[in-house]
């Protein structure tokens, strides 16, 4: 992990309130899939934790983020050539196992699964990507997973695209029987995933330091202990933490 400057190469809207920013930076050259970076948005005090979407050749980093408040709105208005201060890569990401996997993504939980899919595909593993969104306007990234050679299943809550319902509905309707799942998405989705399957879950949390010092983002463990999303996670085994 290190702190460094990144230059914005592009910053484009790819779905409703959802942007992809490509940055030139050496900070994430050695990043693992599922790790995140802390982004300093000019004019805002705390850094924004944003998961790594892709590590691209030539020291390029792709982030996909949703506009959820003023800080991310300012970030979405930044232009090519502007600089951002980054700190990372942080946390423990998804393991790259010697087996085929099912990736389950919900909304802006989808991005870290793309780099994960790429790592599994480069090892010749079969990857099924089940991607859930609220509606068609929110959908992004499905083509990227297809290009990576994944079997892609799309679900929307309003039924406007793909299977009508949740990612769990989609898995059942498609007749998939997952072994290990790797999931990232909103908490209700992660709870449903953990109730049905075994594998790894990536959590989202409000953070301050991002390195495990401030105890701002802790989650409870079943035995009453606690783990830090930023340092011990953001990826945990199913059952490792109380959701």
């Amino acid at each position, binding site marked *: 992990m290190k702190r460094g400057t990144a230059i914005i190469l592009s910053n484009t809207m790819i779905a409703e309130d959802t942007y992809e920013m490509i940055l030139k930076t050496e900070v994430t050259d050695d990043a693992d899939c599922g790790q995140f970076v802390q982004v300093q948005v000019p004019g805002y005090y*705390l850094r924004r934790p944003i998961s790594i979407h892709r590590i691209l050749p030539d020291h390029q980093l792709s982030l996909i983020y949703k506009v959820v408040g003023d800080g991310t709105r300012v970030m979405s208005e930044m232009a090519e050539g502007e600089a951002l201060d980054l700190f990372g890569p942080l946390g423990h990401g998804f393991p790259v196992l010697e087996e085929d996997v099912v990736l389950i993504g919900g909304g802006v939980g989808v991005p870290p699964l793309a780099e994960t899919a790429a790592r599994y595909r480069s090892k010749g593993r079969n990857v099924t990507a089940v991607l859930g969104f609220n509606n068609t306007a929110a959908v992004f990234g499905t083509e990227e997973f297809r290009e990576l050679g994944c079997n892609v299943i799309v679900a929307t809550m309003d039924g406007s695209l793909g299977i009508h319902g949740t990612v769990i509905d989609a898995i059942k309707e498609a007749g998939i029987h997952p072994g290990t799942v790797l999931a990232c998405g909103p908490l209700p989705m992660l709870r449903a995933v953990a109730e049905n399957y075994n594998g790894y879950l990536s959590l989202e949390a*409000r953070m301050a330091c991002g390195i495990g010092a401030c105890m701002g983002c802790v989650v*409870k463990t079943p035995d009453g202990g606690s783990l830090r999303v930023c*340092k011990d996670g953001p990826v945990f085994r199913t059952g490792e933490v109380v959701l």
Partner: protein
Amino acid sequence: MIDLHVDLPGLHLKNPIIPASGCFGFGREFAELYDLSRLGGIAIKSATPEERFGNPTPRIAETPMGMLNAIGLQNHGVDYIIENELPWLAQFDTEILANVTASTEEGYAEVIRKLNHSDVVKAYELNISCPNVKHGGAALGIDPVLAASVTRLAKSAAEKPVYVKLSPNVTNIVEIARAVEDAGADGLVLINTLLGMRLDLRTARPVLANTTGGLSGPAIKPIAVRMVYQCAKAVNIPIIGVGGIRTAEDVLEFLYAGASAVEVGAQNFVDPYACIHIIDDLPDTLQKYGLSSVKEATGRSLNL
């Protein structure tokens, strides 16, 4: 040659920069980034008599030029700290200031008596000002009589100097400062966070699960400088200033106001190398204002 070192009761600081308690853990995470021996000292995360999980999440909310936190003193308890954290900290050439919190006066004395046996701890920072716990903490820090009483008890238990960390959530901080000085405090640390809150407009609920939290960051710096200035005029014990420090120039402002050393808090979250950057910049900054030592800067704005 600019002289950065400061001698305070129990603390021989090679420079006046101390990461603030609760913003630095026990230093383990920052030790992955730089050599902790570069720091003047470390105010380690608060020790309580028993393990505390702390408050539910969300515990953090951003504010304009600052942040709210309601961690709730999560720690493994004083015994764990003595067994696991202090021996690890012993490898660094820096002065350890042990922050102590309890829900009863006797609890403070119990933690201090246990920490007395540690060679690593050089002084105590009595936290009578945490706004995020229901008992003890802030309740003691807002009443001069109670603040003096717990200070007296801590002093009688302590075999090392006791600094009292004051709450800014009072009408007259000078009154509290005088009360703890009279009760035997060896120094003051000020200020702790200011009580604040944020509301989520979609749900109408507080953003923090604890409803309220402590405000820190640059937003509170002018309040902290003012309180250091007022207390420095009123007491004769050294003051460690804390609140919103980001730069070496901020440090100088606190020194001018009467602080002998400073603590750096939330800025460690924004720039994990903040303390090192400030230490590196301090000699040139002192020189820029015609000073050759930190000691010379302390209290420069008093008695003008």
